[in-house]
């Protein structure tokens, strides 16, 4: 049942990206690029998302546990460390370069545009690089 939910959530997420046109990097860059012609649509997308997610997530958290699993899978850290800021900065730089972030990029694979595959492969490479670097930093003791 959880697998059906995951699929349904993915479908709904993609529909949102397509309807809002956030799946189109040009539309995203039209917001992020403040020079020249400006398209504030992305702000409305976030507002729409938060309009549902804020009351929704707060209500779910009050339930204490998810319906189909024993507990919530939540991030453990609550610290604001250098990794958070540096990671967000690097992420932001990449996002500002091509106008793509993970959700729209993966969804756009379904559009068949070849350069999307290049982006996604590079994104996976970047993720793998982090994983390898992180494991190397931790050393064989924790390995």
């Amino acid at each position, binding site marked *: 049942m*959880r697998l059906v*939910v*995951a699929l349904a*959530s993915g*479908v709904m997420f*993609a*529909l*949102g990206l397509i309807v809002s*046109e956030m799946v189109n990097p*040009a539309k995203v860059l*039209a917001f*992020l690029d403040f*020079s020249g*012609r*400006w*398209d*504030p*649509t992305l702000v*409305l*997308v976030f507002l*729409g998302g*938060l*309009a549902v*997610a804020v009351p*929704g*997530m*707060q209500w779910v958290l009050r339930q204490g546990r*998810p319906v*189909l699993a024993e507990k919530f899978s939540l*991030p453990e850290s609550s610290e*604001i460390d250098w*990794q*958070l800021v*540096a*990671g*967000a*900065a*690097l*992420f*932001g730089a*990449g*996002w*500002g*370069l091509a*106008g793509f972030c*993970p*959700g729209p*990029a993966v*969804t*756009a694979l379904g*559009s068949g545009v070849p*350069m999307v595959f*290049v*982006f*996604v492969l590079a*994104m996976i*490479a*970047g*993720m*793998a690089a982090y994983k390898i670097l992180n494991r190397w930093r931790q050393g064989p003791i924790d390995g």
Partner: protein
Amino acid sequence: MTIEGFTPLTGFLGGMLIGAAVVLLFWLNGRIAGISGIVAGTIGTQDHDTRWRWLFLTGLVATALLWPLIAGNAVPVVLEAGMVEIVAAGLLVGFGSRLGCGCTSGHGIAGLARFSVRSAVAVATFFAVAVLVATSTGYLASTGAAG
């Protein structure tokens, strides 16, 4: 700065769908729909719990694939950047999202909705940098300074 191409209604509606998808996954499965985390969780891991991630990602791709059949028009994807920029962007987004533990969906929607201060800091940071990078490259391109 002139306003052009503003589509507030479909933007807001689409955003609501995204928000609903995030709430649905959390309410029923207890999982955060942070796409960078979902993708990363499928890469080279022995964790047996990757099936739900693959199903979610399949939902993303399949919807775009089938969209022309449902809506009668193609999914608009205009990627004008050159190969080098796209590879660099992909590497930065991939590495950065892992180092920073999240992206626009994980921090931007789910994190902010949980009132996470960590996510608020991440969102402020990546938005500021994204605008800086996009605006400078956009400005350089318009003056003909960049290739």
